């Protein structure tokens, strides 16, 4: 298997994205609480085997681009009482992100 087999990156730092509001069964690394939320690409982290495939002993190809995405805490947690400027960074695979 070619380790170079990777999906091209769709997003760049600063791009606005929405996390898919999908709830399939199976092994998914995208936290429940962030699905459906809007954020901004903070950085590109590289490409990695898809954990949703690796979890079932399959090759995980093509490799998926991984991004660190920044969200406003006030949007993530209903009734958030902290500083309005607080953010949370979450690493999310490209196939869970859509342009927003």
């Amino acid at each position: 298997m070619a380790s170079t087999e990777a999906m091209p990156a769709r997003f760049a730092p600063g791009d606005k994205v929405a996390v898919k509001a999908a709830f399939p069964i199976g092994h998914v690394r995208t936290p429940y609480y962030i699905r459906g939320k809007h954020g901004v690409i903070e950085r590109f982290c590289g490409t990695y085997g898809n954990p949703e495939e690796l979890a079932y002993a399959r090759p995980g190809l093509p490799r998926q681009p991984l991004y660190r995405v920044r969200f406003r805490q006030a949007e993530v947690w209903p009734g958030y009482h902290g500083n309005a400027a607080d953010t949370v960074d979450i690493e999310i695979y490209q196939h869970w992100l859509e342009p927003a």
Partner: protein
Amino acid sequence: MGGLPAGPVEATEHDYALWEKRVDALLVLLSKKGHITVDELRRNIEGLGAEAYEKMSYYERWIYAITQTLIQRGVISIDELGSRMAQVQQSDGKH
């Protein structure tokens, strides 16, 4: 777990028991030999369900998930596992 409400995080360090170190080493060796991915480990830990997850300790979850993975992949059979567990139990922890 998964962004659900929970108590405070216990941030203290503690010593690990010998069996816990062995479980840790086992995962490293199995990963290097291509018998398990960390994603399979996580999937099988998630498969415990919330109640069992809460009851088991960190390395208890690991050895459960490692064992599940090895059975799923056919690296070990359930019969081999059962026989070996009985053998170890009979030797009264002399291993």
